[in-house]
């Protein structure tokens, strides 16, 4: 299983606060 990406910073911030973890934000070009 790969990385379980979220697709929104708004979704990630509550999880980051709850789990006390920093956020990895990746910008990609689908090509």
């Amino acid at each position, binding site marked *: *299983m*790969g*990385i*379980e*990406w*979220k*697709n*929104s*910073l708004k*979704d*990630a*911030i509550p*999880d*980051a*606060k709850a*789990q*006390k*973890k*920093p*956020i*990895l*934000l*990746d*910008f*990609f*070009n*689908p090509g």
Partner: protein
Amino acid sequence: MGAVSYPDKKVVDFVAKNMIPVQVRFDEQPIASDFNLRWTPTIITLDMEGKEHHRTVGFLPPEELIPSLLLGIGKAHFDNNEFKEAIESFDKILSGFPGSHSSPEAVYLRGVSIYKETHDTRGLKEACETLQSKYPGSEWAKRASPYNLL
């Protein structure tokens, strides 16, 4: 990144344990403008409030990506005056990935974190000595060179 580094099991495990991962297209707005995006891949470490602390542009293989992410985590702690936690992150880089390109900056910021935590200048001097002995060609060795006079 998507073909090589992100599928790597060590990267998957590291991210699952240590970070909340978010992936967005380069042209998604307003986030691309909010973060002044100009090129991909761009990888940014944010704290839990969404504030940026570290970014890299360009491909990183797994053995460079993990220490780069650790550097970002350490810098997030450092910027938030959480120096013990910052030192823990920098130590993980230096013990697990001593040959990585993130290591010289980790040595430097580790020394500054020790100084901030203890107000003892030995942390700065030791960082300078480590950089000059192990990473003499790095820009961080030059940046730390004044601490040799302490």
